């Protein structure tokens, strides 16, 4: 039995197309890279300044000037490029980034994402999240379906939004959901999860068409 984060990471990895430029958020989204085969030629961007982010360095081989957006030591893949912050965000805001995968605190029926603050409690700041949601060609939200048993997919976000743009896909351990003009459409079920379980864990209205397949995981 896979744990929730592993399910999410594996399912999101299937969305990644060969030869694209992809930005993974820190935390859960960063696990997606573990399931993307090297041979499909994807470049991962870290917004602090590298195209072609690689794995963690071997023990004792860390280079202090080669870090990811979380400040951790990384490597770079062949063909990598180091860039400054203006170029990095030019890629993001100029529509050159094919996909971003971000964590979420809440998503609502309009496909709005809130993921950068809880007023009065937690103010980490938006970092690059607002630029990524506003500028990436495709935005995938990778998050646990609920937080401490409370639904995170709501009729309307109660937390400050990250952008006014509608995200393209929501992937949780229970479901794959696509925000559309008509509302949130349920596309897939998690492993051994029923539609009833998904509806019970979701506060927003879901559009459920006849047969909902179980998600395929590599």
């Amino acid at each position, binding site marked *: 039995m896979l744990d929730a984060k592993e399910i999410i990471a594996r399912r999101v990895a299937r969305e990644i197309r060969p030869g694209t430029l992809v930005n993974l958020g820190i935390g859960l989204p960063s696990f997606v890279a573990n399931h993307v085969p090297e041979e499909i030629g994807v470049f991962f961007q*870290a*917004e*602090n*300044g*590298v195209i072609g982010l690689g794995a963690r360095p071997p023990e004792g081989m860390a*280079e*202090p*000037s*080669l*870090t*990811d*957006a*979380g*400040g951790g030591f990384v490597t*770079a893949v062949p063909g990598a490029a*180091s*860039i*400054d*912050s*203006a170029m990095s*965000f030019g890629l*993001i*805001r100029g529509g050159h980034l094919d996909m971003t995968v971000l964590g979420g605190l809440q998503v609502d029926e309009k496909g*709005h994402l809130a993921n950068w603050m809880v007023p*009065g409690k*937690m*103010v*980490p*700041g*938006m*970092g*690059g*999240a*607002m*630029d990524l949601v*506003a*500028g990436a060609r495709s935005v995938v939200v990778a998050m646990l379906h609920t937080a401490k048993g409370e639904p995170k997919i709501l009729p309307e976000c109660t937390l*400050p*939004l*990250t*952008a*006014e*743009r509608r995200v393209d896909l929501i992937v949780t351990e229970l479901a794959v959901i696509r925000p559309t003009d008509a509302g949130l459409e349920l596309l897939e079920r998690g492993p051994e999860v029923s539609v009833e379980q998904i509806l019970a864990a979701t506060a927003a209205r879901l559009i459920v068409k006849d047969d909902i397949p179980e998600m395929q995981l590599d």
Partner: protein
Amino acid sequence: MKAALRPEAAAEMIPENAVLLVGGFMGTGSPHRLIEAIRLRGTRGLTVICNDLCTPEKGVGKLVASGQVSRAIVSHIGLNPLAQKKMIAGDMEIELVPQGTLVERIRAAGYGLGGVLTATGLGTPVEDGKQIVEVDGKRFLLERPIHGDFALLACHHADYAGNLGYLLTAHNFNPIMALAATTVIAEAEHIVPVGMIPPDAVKTPGVLVDHLLGTGPC
């Protein structure tokens, strides 16, 4: 040819209430010796403009911990719980700016532009109090330039003429900030004779740099 400044001499140049642009991303590419000299001198009332406030033990976070920063304009404070506490308690003024908008606002000041039009921040608290401008049917926020009294940069190498080169993800905000302050001080890991950096490898031309921090006793 630039003169090499001792860290203490550089810190002496910075008066109380100065506005500092400080390079670095989670401390990678930050001028650590300069920051330590400012901390030791105890200059107060500083405004710090930086990607993030790092941690209370590192980078510009040390100046937050020592109570020398009264105002910050940054994109992220998530790894500095002390800064979050000060912000919520109202002890420190913190303006959170989307990372791409932050670098473009600094770039605007450096490149002589009156501001930046961006879709990032629309529909979020970032748009509060800002002018919305419509261009060809698309809505944008008008974001104003950010200029500093001092830019405190870190680089991998400099030559005696003040030409700078950066390593990997340690570029980040440094090359942009080099244009956006009245006085620019660069801290290099290595200072090499003029001629050793090929013209094509110069990322920040020496004409922008006012002072170099000496690498050894001087």
